[in-house]
């Protein structure tokens, strides 16, 4: 750490923390973004449905409704500028029963109240002509034009990168475990005894936000972890559906969806199960069964045979029915951003805006930087024309060497993902940013080559490369 006194310390580099840091980086105030893991986007932000929701779900008048609508708008605007993969494919909430039909009409009304554009109720024929692989039982659907799919990783890598490029310090592997008061500063102490001081601490610690709040004497909320299991299918099945297919919401969430991902695979899930252990990301036999049975109600031909990987995400349920965003009533050094459950990913950019607005309202004088720059460009070799490919290879020959065959990712892209702002430090970090290892061979072929590139770019021995930091080493220390 260059100088460890800051105006703002944001705890947690998920989508919330990253967009808060992004927003703060527009101003001269000194900010750091603290993350306990080796990379950004390691919490709920890593494992979710990656849907940019239109905004017909949240109860009208809630912060959730407001930030969902504003987030959707901002995502559509900023994705181009910041080169965040996003496709506005639209969503369908399908009705399979009469009861469902009533529910989608209710959602439609709610959407209108929330100010969602582009909502329509479709009849059976219209629904099936949009999505021929849906269950023949389908009776109609609520179509939302402004919904889409994104890369949930890049939804936080991109703002974290822009924040870092504009002066925010990203501090990794710093697990806030304790605090001390030092005059007007709060000293955050990590599990390994390192310290960072800040005037205002912004708590965006996801499932752990209640523990952070407790350190400040704030026990006004409890975060309950609720897990959701998913499977990703091979992109051979990419044509199964072309929109996000939801069933009407159930008590525990938005139900099981089937959707194209931003990269053209199919995602199936999530389940919803309250758990005790906030870090329990294990997949289970039962969970996978539930996900597929649920999915087959919408799309009968979805099959486990095409699975290339499965994962679990943990929802940080705040229990208040709304996002918890604001200065703590117990300690005015603490600003909570907690209970950020779905549609938290969508709301991310709007959460950033809202937090700064609230802090400004409290009297803090933000001074805008003159040279704030949020332009971001990522070279994705696969998407370039032949001419563009040749041009980039002439500039940097590493773009001519394909390392990941399944996703056609070049050495140039992998090296760039390590060296750019808020870059990758490990195998999963590279995978999340450039998809090397995310395809059907899951890194079997490119794994050792990616290890080599990371080691070279970070100037460490290959044997020190990890899967995701900490003790997740790839190999033994000693060479043979």
């Amino acid at each position, binding site marked *: 750490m260059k100088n460890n006194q800051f105006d703002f310390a944001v705890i947690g580099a998920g989508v919330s923390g990253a967009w808060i840091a992004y927003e703060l980086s527009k101003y001269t105030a000194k900010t750091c973004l603290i993350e306990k893991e080796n990379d950004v986007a390691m919490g709920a932000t890593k494992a979710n449905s990656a849907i940019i929701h239109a905004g017909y779900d949240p109860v009208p008048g809630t912060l959730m409704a407001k930030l969902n609508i504003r987030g959707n708008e901002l995502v559509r605007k900023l994705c181009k500028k910041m080169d965040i993969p996003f496709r506005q494919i639209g969503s369908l909430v399908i009705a399979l029963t009469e009861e469902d039909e009533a529910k989608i009409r209710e959602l439609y009304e709610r959407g209108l109240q929330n100010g969602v554009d582009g909502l329509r109720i479709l009849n059976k024929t219209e629904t099936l002509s949009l999505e021929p692989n849906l269950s023949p039982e389908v009776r109609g659907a609520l179509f939302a034009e402004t919904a889409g799919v994104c890369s949930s990783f890049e939804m936080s890598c991109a703002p974290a990168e822009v924040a870092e490029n504009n002066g925010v310090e990203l501090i990794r592997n710093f697990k806030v475990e304790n605090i001390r008061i030092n005059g007007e500063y709060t000293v955050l102490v990590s599990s390994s005894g390192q310290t960072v001081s800040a005037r205002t601490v912004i708590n965006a610690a996801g499932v752990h936000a209640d523990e952070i709040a407790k350190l400040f004497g704030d026990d006004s909320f409890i975060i309950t972890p609720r897990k959701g299991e998913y499977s990703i299918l091979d992109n*051979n099945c990419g044509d199964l559906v072309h929109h996000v297919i939801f069933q009407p919401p159930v008590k525990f969430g938005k139900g099981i969806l089937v959707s194209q991902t931003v990269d053209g695979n199919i995602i199936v899930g999530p389940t919803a199960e309250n758990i005790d252990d906030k870090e329990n990301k294990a997949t*289970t036999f039962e969970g996978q069964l539930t996900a597929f049975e649920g999915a087959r109600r919408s799309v009968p031909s979805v099959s486990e045979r095409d*699975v290339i990987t499965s994962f679990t995400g943990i929802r940080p349920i705040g229990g208040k029915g709304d996002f918890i965003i604001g200065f703590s009533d117990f300690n005015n050094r603490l600003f909570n951003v907690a209970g950020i459950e779905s549609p938290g990913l969508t709301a991310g950019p709007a959460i950033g805006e809202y937090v700064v607005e609230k802090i400004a309202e409290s009297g803090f004088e933000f001074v805008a930087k003159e040279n704030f720059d949020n332009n971001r460009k990522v070279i994705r070799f696969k998407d370039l024309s032949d001419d563009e490919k040749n041009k980039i290879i002439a500039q940097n020959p590493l773009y001519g060497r394909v390392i990941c065959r399944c996703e056609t990712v070049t050495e140039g892209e992998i090296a760039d993902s390590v060296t750019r702002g808020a870059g990758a430090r490990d195998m999963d970090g590279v995978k999340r940013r450039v998809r090397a290892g995310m395809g059907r061979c899951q890194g079997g072929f490119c*794994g050792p080559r990616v290890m080599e590139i990371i080691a070279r770019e970070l100037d460490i021995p290959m044997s020190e490369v990890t899967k995701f930091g900490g003790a997740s080493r790839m*190999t033994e220390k000693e060479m043979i």
Partner: protein
Amino acid sequence: MKMNVNVAVIGGGPAGLAAALECRKNGIDNILVIERDKQLGGILNQCIHPGFGLHVFGEELTGPEYAQRYIDMLSDTDIKTLTDTMVLSLTPQKVIRAVNTSLGVVEIHSKAVILAMGCRERTRGMLRIPGTRPAGIYTAGTAQRLVNIEGLMPGKNTVILGSGDIGLIMARRMTLEGAKVSGVYEIMPKSGGLKRNIVQCLNDFGIPLHLSKTAVEIHGRERIEGITVAAVDENLSPIKGTEEYVECDTLLLSVGLIPENELSRGAGILIDPKTKGPVCESGFETSVPGIFACGNVYKVYDLVDNVTKDSVLAGRYAAEYIRSKSE
């Protein structure tokens, strides 16, 4: 850049090399072999154990030695090679797009194409083993590359899931490098590996082979710490109550190979749902005339000697195809 050739061979492993050489022997010139790795030889470069060539050469060679024989034969011909070059796509009109660091994107028009891209390994994701997703889980072939090419040990206390040949070979390799291999678990009632590999790689080292057992859960947050195994019934479903915890810091998967068929699919070639390789009516010709397939991309072989034998035939048929077209 554009190139015109008579035959383009995609993949410079034993299949591609044998097919290219045979084409040349049959009087075809202007042949190009394209290989994504920096060296020719394919998967054999990491198979440093002996056991290759008994049928073709009548002597026992290591993988790299076997490959070198073909690389040497090739260098005595005018067959062109492009290494460190990845083929990105193939059209039914036999136009290949490839890319490398020096030439950029190369468009290759070819009268006939021989597919010889080999295979890939089935992964944990495809098996859908529940549990955590820690480091330390490798396919056996990836582990083989780490040990034999990179000089890195995947771990110290290994369990192997699946008794395919590569898994068996790696059980021995890991043991020789000082790791403990506590057992091989195979879901089927009998091993799919070669008898000689079971004897030489497991029995000789006292490594137990557990049949009709599979992994039902993976444990460990950062690095794998163990797996739960269970016995399976006739339908290969785990039997409740037979679960057993096995400690390990490394899990190697040797659970099957699948032909590498991205390019084949892209060219509109029919894929056999059983072999997962191209459907070839006769003479190793795929459903697209003039595109041939041989080696592991066609179907998964146990022995490289058989790959060579079949690939020679594929090369001969490709040569015949070109001759018939120019008449």
